Structure formats: structure tokens, C-alpha cells
């Protein structure tokens, strides 16, 4: 599963962040912000229009991401608890 598909208020665990194309600076930035293997993430809110963007809790911080950004984050399967 990907972060973009994670339902609201369900914790997930990051497996990896995938690059889209060579030199993906968004993927690199996501990793720097703490989206790394083993990290717990949770979608805490979604935007009012088209459920975009989403608000993601990672570590002690909350980041607003668009779904296209969140789709780079792969989550561990079955670790939804």
C-alpha cells in the first residue's frame, strides 16, 4: 500500500520512498523529512476539495503533502495496526 491510499487515522509503517524518474528531488526531500523505513506515519486530516492535500504525521511533525507526493511513500503491508 502507499501513503496516498492510507485511510485517515490509521497508523502505517513506511517501507521505502520510491524515486519517480532519475534525480527525484521530491523523493529525496521526503526521506530527509523522516519518511524512512520503519517510521510510523498517519494521515490526520484531508483537504476540503477532492481530499487534497493530506496532512501526514511523521515523527513529531505534521506535513501537508499532495497525493502525488504521498504516492512515492510505500508502506509495509499488513502493518496497519
Amino acid at each position, binding site marked *: 500500500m502507499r501513503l496516498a491510499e492510507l485511510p485517515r487515522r490509521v497508523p502505517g509503517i513506511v517501507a521505502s520512498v520510491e524515486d519517480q524518474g532519475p534525480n527525484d528531488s*521530491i523523493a529525496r526531500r521526503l526521506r530527509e523529512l*523522516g519518511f524512512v523505513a520503519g517510521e510510523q506515519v498517519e494521515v490526520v486530516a484531508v483537504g*476540503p476539495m477532492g481530499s487534497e492535500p493530506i496532512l501526514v*504525521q511523521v515523527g513529531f511533525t505534521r506535513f501537508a503533502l499532495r497525493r502525488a507526493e504521498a504516492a512515492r511513500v510505500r508502506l509495509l503491508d499488513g502493518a496497519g495496526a
Partner: protein
Amino acid sequence: MNAETLAPLRLALVGNPNCGKTALFNQLTGSRQKVANYAGVTVERKEGRLRGPSGRSYAVLDLPGAYSLNAASLDEAVARDVIRGCYPGEAAPDALVCVMDATNLRLHLRFALELRELGKPMIVAVNMMDAARRRGIGIDLVELERLLGVPVVETVAVRRHGARALVERIERMAEALHAPTQRLGKGADLHAETRRLLAATVRMPARTARIDDALDRWLLHPLFGLLALAMVMFLIFQAVYAWATPLMDLIDAGTAWLGETVGAVLPEGPLSSLLVDGIIAGVGGVIVFLPQILILFAFILALEESGYLPRAAFLLDRMMASAGLSGRSFIPLLSSFACAIPGIMATRSIQDPRDRLATILVAPLMTCSARLPVYALLIGAFIPQKTVWGVFNRQGLVLFGLYAAGVASALLVSWVMKQWRRDKGEHALLLELPSYRVPHARDLLIGLWERAMIFLKRVGGIILALTVLLWVLLYFPNGGADVTQSLAGRIGQALSVVFAPVGFNWQICIALIPGLAAREVAVSSLATVYALSTADDTAAAQALAPLINDGWSLATALSLLVWYIYAPMCISTLATIKRETNSWKQMAGATGYLFALAYAAAFATYQVAVLLGAG
């Protein structure tokens, strides 16, 4: 050697965005740089001086926040270049003060580790310890210092003496600079090390503050969140009118009294005319808007410190994206309500260059506070004060409408630009939402005081100078006898040929020219023109609003209001666009489209109003 003769040690404050670097900088150097509760407040390097208790002096650099040394936006690039010593005209700092937010260590420790790898002398300041304690977060600073291999101190940048421990450590470090005793080496996993440090030194009862969760549940709710946002924005405009009126009446009465008194004491002649018609009428006509400007700023300052602004950006991101902007454009555009110049500067924190350019180009459409006097004057003169639907102030509603028209035009313009570019590429958002904070009354008052001083300095400087100049052009060559034959009168009449289709008379045309340098001057100029035009003295001492109400048609007033929504005439804004885009072409484009829009919209307004019988 005497400590005072040494070259000052250069310290750079570095760290993640919004961790309190600038608050600390202000505390260390006694400066008053802007502090606010969102990421990307500081976008330039700023230098200040710290004098330690030993008498040694330090050059302290405040830098923009960065998440990593791989800069993703222009402000981050400034921080990276200064730290690395490749910023033009600037030597690398001798030592780093790495600032961390104690409530956000999972993120901030990683950057501290990245900075430590540079091998520069470094002190870590764990800031916001007051907030951390309140949340029951425990940090073992001694252990952290041992594991990091660099000095670690706690600070509370917003409390008096909250940086004392930091100054002590700086002084001690200055005795003998040395590199960090620990390093991970190239390719090490900074996240793994961060987790190890957290596990060993930090006790965190909950990952988030309970109050943030509770507020976000409502303020980010798809329905209530938008409602709350609309309410906040609307309240501001109501307040600007409803609360300011008594003070404005007082200032108006004071100006009139002063004009009459001076006019009665001085003999008729150029001096009396300069003082009464030129300076008192002109400057008084602008000062009267100080209360409204301050109320507007009180709201902006409170919102900036509350942490609500990035939430508003979150709520509006999707809408702004479909118009060719991004949620990240929200804060720069909101700052442009104060003045487009800091607004345009603030776009440096927008990562995507296309979003940044679009934001810069539409920022002048946000009604800046210098335009408020023009709106307020015309609304006051032409829209009767009345309560509609029981609660709303009608003048406030019209003001809200004008601001809304500016915003709608901005969205439209950026949408057109987006179609033009045909850009289908991905735009990143990646926006951090900070903790909520209650604004301190003291900081708000200081902020307002500063705004008042800036405004009064403008009034006493450029506005006064232009008013006097305009008086000269109006008074000569014929001694104020017939204003239409004066130098300015002739210029105004020549221009009014161009502006007749939009309904501007020659008085307005005169006022438009000095308005290029400062928009408020349009108001003081009108005041001076009319004060000189009215022969009889009691009328000259009158406030401007009734004068123009007599002299103009409603169509002309509406047309001028609409003109000022677009009003391309602010030279400093255009210069800032040139500097920030580094392109004459963009600047010329912005000037051209703003002028065309202003003329077209004013033309349409005037003609329609005349057709409807308001001519």
C-alpha cells in the same frame, strides 16, 4: 591579548525552519527582525552584533531555515551558501549555532547531525524548552552533549535572559575553537543515529500536543475549517471599519482645528497656503488612516504568530493549485496585503519556480495597506454608513468586496498564465504545519508600534516631500489664484484627455503621478488640490471626503476604486519584481498587464455606471 581588539568571531544561526533562530538572533543582538510562527519567515541573511560579558564581540548571522543542505528552495540555498562559505562577498562563518526545537527533535536532530558532518565548531541550542516542559517532554542535555560531541545548551528565545546559557557557552567556545569530537563519516545513516540519540536522551509522553490535535480537528475540518477561515477573513474587514471610526473622527477633527488655527494666525500668502493647503490638508488626509492600518496589522500579526496561516494554506491549496498557484503562495500573498514588497520576498520559500513566478506576478493584485487610504476615502465619501442584514457594516462590506475583487483577479491572472504555460508537470507542496501558539500581547504591541512608526516615517518623509512639491506645482506660477492654470493643473488637464474615458477628472490625474512613488500620496495630493481649489477658507479646512462627494459623480468614484484594485503604479514593487525574478522582461510584463487591467476594468466600470445613471 585584549579580547576587545580581536577580530569578531563570526557565528551563524542555523537550523530547521521555525525553530526560533530569529527570536534567538533578536535576543542575542538586540535586533528586531521578524519572528512568526510558520516555516520560511526569514529569507535573507541578516547580521547583528553580540557583545559578550567578557567584552569580546561577535558577528551573528541569522539565516533562513533549511531542512537539509540539499537546498530545495531559494531561501534554503541562501542558508547553504552562507554555511559553506560560497555566498558572494561573505566569508564562511567561524562557528555554527545549531538551533533545534525541543518539541520536534525527530526532525531537527537529523539536521544537526548533517551540520556536524561539516566538521565546523558548533554549539547546539535546544530551544523552546518552555514549550517542551509544558508538554512533559524530558531531555537529558548532559547525555545529549556527550553523545553528540558538541556543547549543548537549552534556550527559551522568547523569554528575557532565555539565551544566557548560550552566551556563556559561546564565550567559552571562543577561547578555544575546536571541531566536533564525533563524526559519522560519509554515507552514514543519519536517521538511524537520530533514533539512537532520541532513545537515549529524550522522553516524549506523546508525539503531538493535545491542543494541536483538538484545534486541528475543527480548524482543518473540510466544512467547519472553511467556514472558520471565511469568518476570520470577514471579521478583519468588518473590524477595520467598525473599530477605527471613532479614532478617525478624532484625527479628522484635530486636522481641521489645526488648519483653521494656523490659517487664522498667519497672514494670507504663500506661507499660509503651504502650511494649511499643502502640509496640513495633505498630510492630515493620510494620517487619518493610521487607525485602520493598525487594526489590519493587529490581525495580521496575531494570525502570523498563532500558527493558523499554514493551516489556511492547507485548506486553500487545492483551489489555489487549480488556479495555477499553490498553498505555499498563501502566506506571501497574505503578506502582500500589508505590502507587496515583503510578500514578493517571501516567495523565496516556494520550492517550485513556476509557482514562485506566478505568485510574484500576482502579488501586486493583493490590496496593500498603502491602498487602504484610497479605498477608505472613497468609500467614506460615497457609500453611506449603514447596517445591513442587522449585523454588517455596509462600508466594511464594500471594502471586503474590493479586496475580494483583487483576490479573484489574482486567481484569474494566474489561471491564464497556467494555461499559457501548458504546464502539466508536478508541483510539490511539502508544507510543515507548526504548533499553535498564543500571541503575546507585548509582542503584538511592539509590532504595532513599529508599523505605526514606519507609517509615520513615510508620512513625514516621502509623503510630506511629494505633498510640498505638488503644492509648489499647484501654487505657481500664478500664486494660487487659479489652480487650473498652475503647472500641475496643466499637466493634469493634458493627462485627463487619456483618462476621460474612465471618468477621471484633472484633479485625479494630478494625484495619480505622485502616487507612483507612494500610493497614499494620491490621497494627500487630492487633499492639497482641493484645498487650493476652494477659495473660501472654511471649505479648505473641511475634510476631503465631503469635497469630493460634491465634486465627483458616483461613476468616477467607482472607476477610481476599481483602478486602484490593479493600480500598477508603485515603483518599489516593480523594482522588487525585477530583483527577485532577475529579469526586466518579467517586470515589464507585470507593469503592462497591471496597467492594461486597471484601464480596462476602470473603463468598464465607468461606462456601465454612466449607463445606469450614476454619471
